[in-house]
């Protein structure tokens, strides 16, 4: 055993000693197990398409992004993807995967992670490793850039609350909701996602009469659905039940209160994943859905150019999917920084990370997305609606444009305020910057018309 230990150590040391000084080592942290295991190819494909487009990367396998990439260079340095993290959207696995990527494979930069809880851990980890740089992949928790906010963590997309900006106003104006109840997965993403709706809906004058919290991965939703007020006591329900629970929870509601009424249901982005369900999805067609920072079907020059790039390198990946898009932007920002600082890493890289980029779905400010002082993007958001397509399949279409959503919701979420939780945020009336400025999007075109 002793011999084995020494042997392994020697080999390990030798392999590290062999690493060239001129290489920037990048890790892509994503999930390959659990509810988001599809993210493994979406995320790595998104990031690698950016490397291919802006940093000379050669795709090894068009159909399998995780096969890797060669020949990436930026700022005169070679970029090496040293590993892909394999999480399962829980923290314990994120711990070992992060340490493996950053310490065993000695990555200088992480692009990722995928989920909110993982990002909270990564942000805490980043605090202790100031020389490493972290560009969050597509995680929706507030804490990494609000409460924890280390100087070496960057996020070029919105958090779970921001993704639902505008949802409250749409419910209030288009659906005439005044009183709403919320059912939300009882964990940080569920709370954060609901927080965006609560902030938006209460700001304009709505009232939340009940919040119900089914535990994550519940199999029987009936008891939780029964806690919701019946349809005659509220105007509608904001629905934040994800994973494998979206359809069962809606079925449980149908059994308890009768026919599903799309006008009384408003889902967060989990509703957009319902499309594959042949039973429930048609019953909620017409319901509004929160966004994911992307604009599926948006017809702008920038968006089309981006789609062409994705199609060129990874034709099978859906470019309008947030998993692909957010990792793409993260990797693109990294390339810009390396080009600027001559391939330096550590604090120089962090200083060089762009404070503004021009992503495909950003329209406000001439298409420029700014980071705030916590290195968190201020991003346009796109509310969606479930529609039945010509072939009968249900898909989510962009129906609104919410300009320049910031993480604080104009000061409602602060570094010192409690993070979203069962009772956070409180329901308060406020004047949000985008209030009254939400534009109608029709057939992928942002109109001049504001939502009324």
């Amino acid at each position, binding site marked *: *055993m*002793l011999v084995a*230990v*020494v042997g*392994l*150590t020697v080999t*390990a*040391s030798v392999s*590290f000693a062999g690493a060239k000084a001129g290489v920037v080592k990048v890790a892509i942290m994503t999930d*390959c*197990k659990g509810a988001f*295991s599809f993210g*493994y*190819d979406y995320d790595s494909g998104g990031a690698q398409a950016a490397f291919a487009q802006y940093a000379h990367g050669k795709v090894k396998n068009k159909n399998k992004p*995780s096969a890797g990439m060669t020949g990436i260079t930026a700022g005169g340095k070679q970029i090496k993807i040293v590993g892909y993290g*394999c999480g399962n959207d*829980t*923290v*314990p*696995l994120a*711990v*070992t995967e992060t*340490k*493996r990527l950053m*310490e*065993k494979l000695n990555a200088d930069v992480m692009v990722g992670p995928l989920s*909110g*809880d993982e990002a*909270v*851990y990564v942000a*805490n*980890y980043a*605090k*202790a*490793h100031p020389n490493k740089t972290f560009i969050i992949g597509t995680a929706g928790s507030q*804490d990494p850039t609000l*409460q*924890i906010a280390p100087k070496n963590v960057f996020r070029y997309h919105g958090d779970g609350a921001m993704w639902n900006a505008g949802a409250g106003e749409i419910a209030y104006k288009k659906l005439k909701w005044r009183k709403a109840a919320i059912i939300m997965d*009882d*964990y*940080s993403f569920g709370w954060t996602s609901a927080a965006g709706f609560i902030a938006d809906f209460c700001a304009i004058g709505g009232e939340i009469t009940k919040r119900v*919290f089914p*535990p*994550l991965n519940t199999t029987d939703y009936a008891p939780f659905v029964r806690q919701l007020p019946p349809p005659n006591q509220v105007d509608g329900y904001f629905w934040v039940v994800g994973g494998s629970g979206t359809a069962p929870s809606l079925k449980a509601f149908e059994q308890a209160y009768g026919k599903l009424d799309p006008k009384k249901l408003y889902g967060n982005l989990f509703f957009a994943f319902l499309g594959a369900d042949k039973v429930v999805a048609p019953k909620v067609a017409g319901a509004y859905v929160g966004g994911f920072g992307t604009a599926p079907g948006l017809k702008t020059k920038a968006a089309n150019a981006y789609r062409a790039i994705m199609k060129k390198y990874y034709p099978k990946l859906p470019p309008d999917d947030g998993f692909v898009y957010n990792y793409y932007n993260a990797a693109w920002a990294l390339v810009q920084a390396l080009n600027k600082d001559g391939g330096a890493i550590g604090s120089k890289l962090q200083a060089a990370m762009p404070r503004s980029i021009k992503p495909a779905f950003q329209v406000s400010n001439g298409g420029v997305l700014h980071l705030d002082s916590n290195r968190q993007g201020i991003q346009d958001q796109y509310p969606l609606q479930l529609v039945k397509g010509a072939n009968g399949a249900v898909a989510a279409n962009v129906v609104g444009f919410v300009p320049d959503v910031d993480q604080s919701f104009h000061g409602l979420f602060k*570094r*010192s305020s*409690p*993070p979203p*939780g*069962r009772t956070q945020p409180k329901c308060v009336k406020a004047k949000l910057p985008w209030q009254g400025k939400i534009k109608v999007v029709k057939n992928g075109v942002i109109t001049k018309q504001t939502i009324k």
Partner: protein
Amino acid sequence: MNPLRWAPKQRLERCIALGALVLVAVWPALGLNAYWSHQIFLQTFLFGIAAASLIFLSAYGGMVSLAQTALFGIAGVIIGNLATKGGAGGTSKGLHLGWDPTVAVVVAVVMTTAIGLIFGLVAARSAGIYFLMITLTFSVIATYTLGQVTKISGFSGIGGISSYTPGWLGDVLAHPDRLYYLALGVAVAVYVLIRYIVRTPFGLSLQGVRDEPVRMSSLGYNVALHRTLAFGFAAFVASLGGILYVWWSGQIAPGNVDLPGTINLLVMAVIGGLVRIEGAWLGAFVFIVIQNYVRDFAVPGLSFGGTLFGGSFNTIVGIIFLVIVLASPAGLMGAWDRAVAELSRRRGPPRTADEPAPGPGS
């Protein structure tokens, strides 16, 4: 402790153990690969402590407990709630009591031991598969309690705990070697303590209870009490591992104590061998090395589902586990014991059944 009086096998084992101990003791000081010290060895120390609590119950008490991971996690959750602070720069979840971390450690150890005693009280009257099921139930209860009582943990658990270490330990993020040596010291102390305990009257009677509870009762022993106390002691040991774990990983979540987590610890213990305490660290070491290195090899044909490197990781771990258990039901320590016995038979002169063992040290 006169080396001249040790049997050859004891001498060999102690030489190896001492060699390994010296190696891990000087590793960080010599500046050797930090990933090995801070990941492989540190995890070996702290999961080994948890596995030792399992092996202690199994080898000396005849009780295979599936609750040790839960107790390990409970200690971590208590620390997380007691020591961390909320607000700006603090952790986002938990009770944020902000206690002095040293006090939190003491309270976590005491509370976990108390919970272990309560578990023990319930489980002590059952044996075999029923004991296994009851302890599995504890583990499931712990997972769901953490997952659903969002005040103390919730699904996301508590993060950022490593920023709240006691003053005497200092900042483990800036100085991970301190945690390394602390974990090494605790692991050695746990090992010595268990070795000592099993030779005390309490330890002997526990082994008696393992072999023949009815007989022990008629010798004047309170069987259930001994089992309960053993469970409490094992909880104490597991809590030490749990506290080191949250300082190392910075977080604790239901995912640490769920079924896969429970099984991982059992696998470590079984790989090492449920017969000897040394097996705890050996098993943890092998498991963690496998976890860290085997995944880098994609094996064609073993890619069942999943996307990770052809998805062969879990399959490979499973096959290695099966091979070890089939080749040696008593794990690696058992294989070692057998190999030594076989060697000494081949080398040494044949001796009869009733001759004493070869004179020590001659």
